[in-house]
Every structure is written in structure tokens, then in C-alpha cells.
């Protein structure tokens, strides 16, 4: 599987603030790749870097085999881009926006665009300024997809869309991926992304926490709910073998997200006298996201600094 996007050791600083800190990731072609992260995590900066809108402090990016800073025009011909706030000309009608954009793309753009706006039930003769936020987002999506790009990069594309259209749109992303095209999107709608994403990357405070195929990630991580007889007693030694990503303790119950949980460890834990119940389950994407954006190391660090709560361990 060839790589459509390759990000190598990318760092970007705005003044003293590091927005992207040594990021490296590769996006294979023909997948739906979801970039997740909290507000201000650096998602939009990374996306803008991929399109050549931002000069990097270090590292390099290759999109469709091209350097975005050196070949921005070629990248725009191959990549459809929907920003989080598409600045469409408000005085244009929906039809005029398509007609205007068609001048920059090969033949067939107008036909595809007309089909899209028909699908989204957009009024062709209405001015953009008269459209709702969701309808504007639909116009922006139609424009980005009308030339059938090899790679579609979208920054919060479903923001403002109603649930029906959002679902239909996300499903169409699966079709695109199935057709060999690549979709790179950032979103806060984790549950919906989970349905369509093949790959997922989680960005937290400018640092990449994980890049992995979603199913692989899900299978490598386990959620453990442990019921203790005595919370003051130490946990079994088998726990040392686990990589704890996230932990919340409430009374005699510990909720954990761990990596490296095997049946052998489960067997060992079940024999421990202090544990009277062990529940292990596969996490969903939201739980994974929370686990990676609120890592256990930071909790431990807080506890070491005396900031942790005694009875109820709050996550960092």
C-alpha cells in the first residue's frame, strides 16, 4: 500500500509556543484516515502544512509525492480541501460558485458539482449569503468533491451538517476509500468517525499520541474494570506487565484502559485474593481517545507532586 501523505519529524512553532512537536505519520492510499485531537492540539496547523500554507520549523511533508511548499499548485490539482471555515464568496449563488471553480479544474467538474448540489438539495439560485451554516458546508463539500480528487483533506467537514446528511456524507467517504481514493479528515464527531475511519491518529498538545489502523488499535487495548475487596491493599504483580493508558478509581472499583492484556494475565488476576470481579472488554474509539489524551503517566506525575486526590483518583 503506497503512502499518499508522509509527515516526517515535523515541528512548528508560533513564537514560543510549539504547535507541532516532532510529528511523524504516514497515510496509506485508499483509506479513511481520521485525525483526532482536542481544540488547539494542532490538527488544523498540520492540515495547513500539508497544503503548503505553513512553513515548518523542521521536518518535511510529502503529499501525493510532492512537497507542498515547492509544488503547491500541483497539490491543489490533486487534493480536494475543505477548511473548517470555508470562505466562499457570499455574493455568488450556489450555481455561480460552481461555475467559477470549474474554470480551474478539468471537464466534468460542473456535472459532478450539479449532481452534488442536487444530492444535498441545495438551491442553485440562492446566494451563499442567504444559506444556513450547514448549507454552506454542503456547498464547500460539493466544490471539494466535484473534481473527484485522489485525496480529500477535510478539517471538521461535518460541522454544521444535520445528522442525516452527516451520516450519508460519512458513508460516501467509505465508498471513496473503496474506490481507491484517500480521505484525510479531522473531526470531533468521534462516534461517527469510528464508523468510517480505517486509520486513526490522535494528536494531543502538539504531540502525536498514536497512529494506527483503528481495528488494530482496538484489539491492542483493553478496558478493565476491577472490583477490589480492600482498596488499601496493593494490586497484584501481574498489573506490572500492563501498559496503563488511563485509570479512574472510585472506592473499591478501578476502571483502567491498558495495553498488553492477555489471557494469561487475566488468569493470574483472577486468582488474586483482593480481586473479586474482573471485567475485560474492547474499547470504542471515544474511550481510546480519552485514554490517549488523558494518559496515565500524567496522573502518576501529579500524584507524585501531591496533587492527586486521595480517595477518588481523578484523571489528569
Amino acid at each position, binding site marked *: 500500500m503506497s503512502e499518499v501523505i508522509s509527515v516526517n519529524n515535523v515541528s512548528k512553532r508560533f513564537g514560543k509556543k510549539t504547535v507541532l512537536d516532532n510529528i511523524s505519520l504516514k497515510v496509506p492510499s485508499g483509506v479513511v484516515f481520521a485525525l483526532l485531537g482536542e481544540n488547539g492540539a494542532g490538527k488544523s496547523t498540520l492540515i495547513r502544512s500539508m497544503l503548503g*500554507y505553513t512553513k515548518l520549523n523542521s521536518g518535511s511533508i510529502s503529499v501525493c509525492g510532492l512537497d507542498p511548499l515547492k509544488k503547491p499548485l500541483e497539490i491543489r490539482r490533486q487534493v480536494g480541501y475543505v477548511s473548517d471555515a470555508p*470562505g*466562499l464568496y457570499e455574493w455568488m449563488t450556489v450555481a455561480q460558485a460552481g*461555475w*467559477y471553480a470549474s474554470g*480551474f479544474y478539468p471537464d466534468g467538474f*460542473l*456535472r459532478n458539482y450539479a*449532481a452534488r448540489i*442536487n444530492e444535498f438539495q441545495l438551491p442553485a439560485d440562492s446566494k451563499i449569503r442567504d444559506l444556513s451554516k450547514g448549507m454552506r458546508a454542503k456547498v464547500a463539500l460539493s466544490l471539494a468533491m466535484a473534481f473527484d480528487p485522489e485525496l480529500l483533506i477535510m478539517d471538521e467537514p461535518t460541522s454544521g451538517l444535520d445528522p442525516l446528511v452527516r451520516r450519508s456524507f460519512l458513508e460516501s467517504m467509505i465508498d471513496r476509500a473503496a474506490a481507491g481514493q484517500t480521505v484525510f479528515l479531522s473531526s470531533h464527531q468521534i462516534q461517527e468517525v469510528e464508523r468510517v475511519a480505517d486509520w486513526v491518529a490522535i494528536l494531543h498538545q502538539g504531540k502525536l499520541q498514536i497512529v494506527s489502523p483503528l481495528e488494530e488499535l482496538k484489539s491492542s487495548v483493553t478496558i478493565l474494570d476491577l472490583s477490589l475487596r480492600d482498596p488499601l491493599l496493593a494490586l497484584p504483580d501481574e498489573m506490572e506487565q500492563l501498559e496503563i493508558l488511563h485509570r479512574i478509581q472510585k472506592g473499591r472499583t478501578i476502571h483502567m484502559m491498558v495495553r498488553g492484556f492477555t489471557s494469561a494475565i487475566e488468569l493470574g488476576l483472577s486468582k488474586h485474593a483482593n480481586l473479586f470481579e474482573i471485567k475485560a472488554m474492547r474499547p470504542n474509539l471515544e474511550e481510546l481517545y480519552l485514554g490517549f489524551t488523558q494518559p496515565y503517566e500524567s496522573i502518576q506525575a501529579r500524584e507524585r507532586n501531591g496533587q492527586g486526590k486521595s480517595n477518588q483518583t481523578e484523571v489528569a
Partner: protein
Amino acid sequence: MQLANQNKPSLWGSLLWKDFQQVKLAFLVLVGGALCLQLLFLTIALLTIDHKQLGPLSTSFLGIASGTPILLAVACSGMLIGHERQSGNWAWSSSLPVSWKKSLCSKLIVATLGSLCASLPLGIIPAIFATVDVLASYFSLTLLIFFQVIVLCFLATLLMRDTLVALLVAGTVLTVLHSFSLIPVLHSWPMNRFGISPDAAPRFWFSFLSTSVLTVGLGLLVSAFRWRWTYGQMTKIAFWKERASTVVTGHFRYRESASARPSEWWMMIVHSLRNNFVMGLLVLANMAICTILFLRMDDELHLFFVLLALLALGVTTFQSDQMLGRFRFLADRGIAPWKLVLSRLVVSLGMAFPAYLVFLIALAFSQGQFDRLMLGLFAGAIAFSLGALASMCFRSQVMAIGAAILVGVFSFIINGILYSWVLHDQQMLTQVNGGAFENILLLFLPIGAFILLVSIFWMARRWLVLDKPNLEVHFLWVSVLASLSPFCFACTFGFLSIPYAPEISKPVESSQAIEHIAPEYLSITDPLLAGDMPGIAILSRYQSETMHMIAGSANGSISTIRNELKEKGDQPIRELLEPILGELDRLQNEAKVPMSYGLKNKLNLLIVRTAALATIALEEKEAELGLRLWKLNRELQDFASKVNALDSQGARKTAMFLLLDLKSEGVQLIGGAEIYRSLVPSVSDERAESIQYSLAREQNTLQHLRLTSSSAITPMHWLAVTRFFPPLLWLYEREMVIDHRNQRAYFALLPKNYLTGEVRRQLELRFPQ
């Protein structure tokens, strides 16, 4: 679907279409407005003067034709770069597969070709009247300044986030750059036709600076455009380190510890200061620079620039709130509209008016014109309020400043025309009778600013609450109302200032009101001009008083002059004559520059004043002085007919009437008919008209109808206000003349001015036989 069947445009087609659509409205409004102005001037000129004398007017037409493309250049920069960047269109456009070079070229093509082509219709009227070399001179200078404006404004709007600030900075830079080269060239330009000027030094500096500005500016423009189009989109250029937020935060923190929280008013004022302070300072700096530069020219240009700056300062009032709909933040928190408006106005006015007041006082001291202080103050208030209203009604900065300037200029011109129209039917000089109307107008001028300010508060709720308040339409009708209301109020309620009008409510039969002036005011003298011009002396008491008023208008009252004449002989008249001679020398020295309105007025006043003084001198038997004054008057008339034929027409005609009205004793005093004939200016329309008028009177085909105040009562006499409402009054007077023409060929009506009690300019009508 219809869209799918449409033909795909080419890349260039798309770019040019989009850029043209962006500026289409600005083109239409500016070019349409300028064309309307030209046609308005032309219509008035054709109605009031002989078409042969339209030549000198060509400079006014050329001025409009030259100024419009420069304004279009500013508008294009604002719309194609500034507005696109502020509204986020820039980001979307740059995400399309189009290179920065093509995008820049398209914008430059639309701005350049569009502006120049759109301005072509404006060249039609000047081309009819101006000579080819004058047209070529104007065209070359306009083109040069146009390109400089395009380059600098494009560059500034690329570098700065705020369009208005960018345009102001570009304007200031351009003005400063040219201050040491362009103004000397402009001084020598009209006489030397710009290019064959013997003054090589200013021409060299002008060419050097112009070339440098264009070359450096173009290089910077290309680099800046590429940078902004690609990786420089988010970069913010700050001329100083932004620490204000921490200061304010710290301040709030301090207040938080002192009291529960800062007061709402304090928050609003601080917010308003942070919104407007920098922009206001820039505008004020611009105002100061332009004032200093243009004070060198003896003209009202500096006042125009200062009013323009006040208008711009008004536009800054709400623009920071308008940007990205920031006002919604305050509106959503339930801030009362009037509080928001007041906090913005207080800060804006607090910056504008102290500076403007200092400027006005400095101007009054430097020019000794204290009587214009109040006029300037009220005009400034209107300009500022108009700008503030525009900034509330238009979301786009460029549209706001464009609309405010357009409405301001139109109001200024239309008010000027109406004012001149009213005074045209007053007695010979505005300095005599115009003063009364000017005072009334001054009294009602604050109404304009008041209407605008009240409208701002009135529209505030609509502005804050409604999504689509459609305030542009409100702006139009409110600004028209505010612009015309002072004049209309002055006309309508002017009668209230009439100190004594005993017959005002006494209806009299119109036939009883008609008084034939002859024979008590008519006395036929011996023919003085052999052949073509019999001399007739009609010296009515009105004319005599008027002459004395003219003579004494600048240097004391008529009684003072008369007393001094009795006590000191001709010394006072000689004292009056010396400054006149000094003025004449100065006028001759300065005649190479285009004559300003101030100079034109001075020249006209000199012509009439010397004629009146000469008449008085002859009345007082001061033969030598009278002759000197008449000779001086002849020189002035010759001079005026060369440099300012059109605008001096009225004054020259007045002087000729006074000369023609000279009694035979007066003619003998100055040395007889031969010398008298030498004093009458050579062939001109005014001379012919004066002679025709005298002939008509001699042949008794002229009937004078002197309307007393009672006879001027209209059929609507129950409505006293119509007595001074000029359009109605004049209509009535004309109808009355037509009613009483009695198959005569020539009528003159002497309607009374109700303000001064004097006879206004004679209303003359000729009827076809």
C-alpha cells in the same frame, strides 16, 4: 440540470469574472456619481452662461474625470485584497489550483483596465471643451498617480489585516513621498503644460520619486502577494509588541481585587478604546500631515482633507465591531444598544474633536478668518456623524468609507449649488447680502449633525438585533435628509430673521403694488459714446446704497467712510486703495497656479469694490482718484477676463453697469467722453449685454416693476413661510412678469430682499416678438 449543461469557463475567464463582480458595484456607483456631477455642472453652466464660455470650466470636468480613477484604484484595492482577506474569501481562493501570479495579474487587470475604461465616459465632456495638450497633461499625471495608488494600496492591504488602516497608511505614505516633488510641479504645471516646464528641479525630483515608488512598490507587491497567497496567510504583522491584552487583564485583575467587577461603562470604554485608538491615531496623523502639506497652497484643500479625515474617523467608530460580526458578542450579552453606541461615539469624538478644534483655531489665527470657525465646526460635526452612520450601516469597511465619501461630496456640491442659486438672485455680491442667508444657514447647520446622530441611536437596536437589518437603505435616506435639511430649514424659516416687515400679512391687489420707477429715477444725459453707445444715467437710491455697502463692506460702515470723507478728504479712500493695489500685485504673481475659490472671490470683490469706490470718489468730486480707480478697474477687468473669464462675469457686469450709469458731471470730471470710452472694456458678452440693457431702457421698452413687500405676497399668502421660500417666491415673480408683459419685449423686475430690505438682482425676461 441547467448548471450541468453550462459551458465551463477558462481559468482567466473565471478569475476576471470573479474580480470584476467584486468591484462592479464600486465602479457603477463611483463612475455613475462622477458622471452625474459632470452633467449637473454642465447643465447649470449651460443654463446660466453662454456656451462659448464653457472652456474655463473644462478644468472642473477634468478634475472629476481625473479623480475618479484614483478613487476607483483605492476601492479596487479595498475590495480585491482587503475585503477578500477579511472575509476569508482569500483562503478559499488560494485553495483552488490557481497560481499567485495569475491571481495577481487578474486583480491588476481588473483594477487597472476596469478603472481606466470605466472612467473613459468621464472624459467625453472635458474633451469637448479642453485643448488636446491640457487633456494629455491631465491624462499623463492621472495615469502616474493612479498606478502609484494601485501599487501602494495593494501592498498596504496585503500587509495589514485592517483594510481602512491599510488604505490610510498607503495614502499617508504617498502624500509624504510626493510632498516635496508633486506640489511644486502642480504649481508650475498648468502654465507650463507639464513636460516643457522650465523648472527642471521639481520635475526631476517628481520623476525620480515617481519611478522609485513604482519600481520598489511593484517589487514589494509581487513578493508580498506571493507570500500572502501561500505560506504567509496567517502571519500577522504587528508594528509593536501586543501587550495591551495583558495590561488590560492586569488592570481588570486589579479592579477585581478592589471591587467586585469592573463597571459596564468602564468595560465598554476600554473595549472601544482598544477598538479605535490605533486607527484613530493613524487618521489624526494623516490629517495632520495633509494639513501641513496643503497649507502651503492658498486654497481650501486643507479644510477638505481635514473634513475627509473626520469622515474617516467617523467610519472607524463601529468598524471594529462590524468586523466578523463582533458586535454580536455584546448584543448577545444584553448590552443596551444606546450604551454601546455612546461608548463608541465618546471615544471616537474624544479623539476627533480636540484635534479638529486645535486645527480650526490654528487656521483661524493663521488666516485671520474667525467667522468661519463655527462653520468649520458644524461642517466637521456633519462629516464625522456621516462617517459614523456609514460605519454602522455598512458591514464592509470599503463600502462604508466609499458611501460616506460619495454622499459627503454630493451633499457638499449640491448644497454649494443651492447656496449659489439662492445668492444668485440676491444683490450683486454675496459679501453684502449673502451674509444674512449665511448666518441663517449656519444657525440650521447643526440640524444635519443632529439628525445623523439621532439616526445612529435610532438604528442601533436594529443593527444589533436583526440579522439582515438592511441599514444601507436607511443610510441613504437619512444622509440625504441630513444633508438637505439645514438648507431647507434656512430657506423655509429664514423669514423669522426678518426684523421688520410691516406689510407682510396685508394682501394688496397686485396691480396696485406695481410701481413704475420712471420718471423720478430716470434722467437721460447727453450721448457720450459716439455711434454705438448712448450714455444713460440711472442712479437709483438702491444702487447708491449698494455701492456704499460694497465699498464699506470690508473696511467699516458707510457712515464711517462718509464721515471720514468729510473730515479727512480723500485720505480714507486712498487708504482703501493701497491694499487693493497690493492685492492686485499678489494676484498677478500668483496667477500661474489654478485660481482657488478664495482668489476668485478676492478678484471679483476687487473689481466691484474699485468700481464702487470710483463712483463714490466722483460723487465726492475726487476726479483724480476717481479716474485712477476706474483705470485700475479696467486693468482688473482685463486681467480677470484673461485668467478667470467665467467666474468674474458677474463682477465685471456690475462694474460696467456702474460705469454706464455715470452722470454727465462724472464723465466731465474724469476728462470727457474720450477717456470715458477708454475705460469701457473691449468687446465681450458682458459689455454687449450692458449696452443692450441701456439701449432697451432708453427706448422705453423696459418696464420696471418694483415689488414692495406687500406685492410679493403669493396667492398662498396665508402661508407666510412661502414668502421666503425661494423656489416658490421666484416662481411667483416670474408668473407676475408674464401676466404684466403687455406685449412688451423686455421686462425687469426689482424684487425686494426681505432680509435686508434691498432690491435683489434684477430679474430680466425677454419675450419673443
